[in-house]
């Protein structure tokens, strides 16, 4: 079973949800937690442990100047403007390359081959019995988040119970992270910003055909608008967490709600059962 935690709006508490759910479920069996917010991964901060790290690379073209006739076909073909062919040399802009391999295909002189370029890292650790944490981290300055997300998910492909923490937003990194998940937990807050972005996130999950449940975080009791939206769209509220300075402080210092206040574990167990009912999938 693959559980995605997403949000639309940033900072609503995705990582908090994913981390506490994994922490709780790991007491009952093997859980893999995957940090797919590769631009700003944070889960490792809540689970400090020694990690093994490997590189994520993508193939990028290398031009053999001895074979290149500077015909310009590769530059014309590249849809991303990553190759500019001058009279006597070819300029390559790796940050624009999507690694499609097209330049290699169209080169009539066999002058292009590919070599791996580092775009990020994957760290794997075992911070507590039953829990494996895989964190994808995008190289700073690299725009290629999607291949790093894909690599992080692949590393967990054969695991039984996988919890995926996604990036905020509604664009390609979120789609990549949600792809193949059984259902999605959307974490929101009861403000106009939270509700606006929740609507977008619900739309993305619907387009991908993924069932969705809602968690309202930092509730100050004024949740009417969010509740109305959920009723209108037939979305189940899986859990409501109140705002409290104490809970905020626990997370701010890098601790987990369920570790600091173990009574919360039963709420996260209950959340899991509601989630499972959403998907119709047995563990």
């Amino acid at each position, binding site marked *: 079973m693959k559980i995605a935690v997403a949000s639309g709006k*940033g900072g609503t508490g995705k990582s908090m949800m994913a981390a506490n759910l994994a922490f709780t479920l790991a007491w009952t069996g093997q859980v893999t937690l995957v940090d797919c917010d590769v*631009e*700003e991964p944070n889960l490792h901060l809540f689970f400090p442990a020694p990690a093994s790290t490997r590189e994520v690379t993508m193939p990028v073209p290398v031009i053999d100047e001895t074979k290149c006739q500077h015909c310009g076909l590769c530059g014309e073909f590249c849809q*991303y403007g990553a190759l500019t062919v001058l009279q006597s040399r070819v300029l390559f802009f790796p940050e624009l390359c999507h690694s*499609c391999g097209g330049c290699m295909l169209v080169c009539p002189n066999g002058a292009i081959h590919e070599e791996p370029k580092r775009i990020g890292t994957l760290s794997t650790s075992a911070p507590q019995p039953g829990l494996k944490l895989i964190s994808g981290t995008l190289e700073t300055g690299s725009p290629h988040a999607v291949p790093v997300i894909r690599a992080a998910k692949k590393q967990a492909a054969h695991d039984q119970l996988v919890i995926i923490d996604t990036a905020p*937003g509604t*664009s390609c990194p979120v789609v990549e992270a949600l792809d193949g998940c059984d259902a999605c937990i959307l974490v929101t807050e009861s403000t106009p910003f939270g509700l606006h972005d929740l609507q977008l996130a619900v*739309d993305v999950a619907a387009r991908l055909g993924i069932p969705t449940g809602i968690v309202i975080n930092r509730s100050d009791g004024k949740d009417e608008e969010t509740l109305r939206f959920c009723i209108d769209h037939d979305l189940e509220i899986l859990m409501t967490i109140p705002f409290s300075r104490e809970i905020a402080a626990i*997370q701010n*210092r890098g601790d987990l709600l369920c570790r600091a206040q173990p009574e919360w574990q039963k709420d996260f167990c209950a959340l899991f059962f509601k989630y499972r009912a959403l998907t119709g999938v047995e563990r």
Partner: protein
Amino acid sequence: MIRLAVISGKGGTGKTMITAALAHLLPGSIVFADCDVDAANLELVLGPTLIRTEPFMGMKTAVIDPALCSRYEECREHCRFDAIECLADTCRVDPLRCEGCAVCTVICPASAVTMQPRQTGEIKYSETSRGHLVHARLVPGAGNSGLLVHAVKKTAMEQDQDSDLFLIDGPPGTGCPLISTISGTDIVLIVTEPSVSGLHDLKRVVAVCRQFRPRILVAINRFDLELSLSDKIQNWCDEEKIPVIGKIPFDPAVIESVRLGVPVTESGATPAAQAIQTLAAILKQELTNLGNRR
């Protein structure tokens, strides 16, 4: 025109709330851009009146003509984005996965694939009481958010080139929309929060900003929720010689003002509003200094 982007690394630290307050407090003529195109919220506090919209065409997308497709499956084998599915009668492209590389068009033995323009969003040009706002809506799930950010910025700079200030509400993260947002800016204001995640993400986004040339400033929002971490952020910024120009306390008036759809600085002298006024005064001096140097 001075170009100022409000960004954060970590999401939900208060970028939009601060941008809206700065709209209210900074002097001179301003043009705004909401570059958080995935989840654009600035319009919810600036109360814009729409002047016009234009479609945003992202990268072209591959389309397979079922009448020509002979199911050679070469396209599926060569697609590195797993965007092509071959069914019993024809192959089909998933537009959410297609990155527009066009490899399938050259590899298809039946020449059944063409690249076709596809609308992936719209750009909106609006009027607010403080100046024009360029904002956008990305079709949920669509790619090319970096390109859309670029288009939003370009529209703002072309339409309102005589403005004194170009004020950008940026996206979270460090990836392609963020890079597109900060490129060409003079100042970035990074809004962070006193949490281990906030500090971690601040360090990463500063590293990305340093690959460009803007002056980097920091504000700590809700600084009083964890004073030890606020001190840690302050110390790190001191070591890195990054000025911390504001510390804003946690204040329920912020959520109330968002619910009312107004900048927090317009709803009275609350603790958060006062702290943002101090921040805006320092920022105003920064803008003056930068203007004088030109």
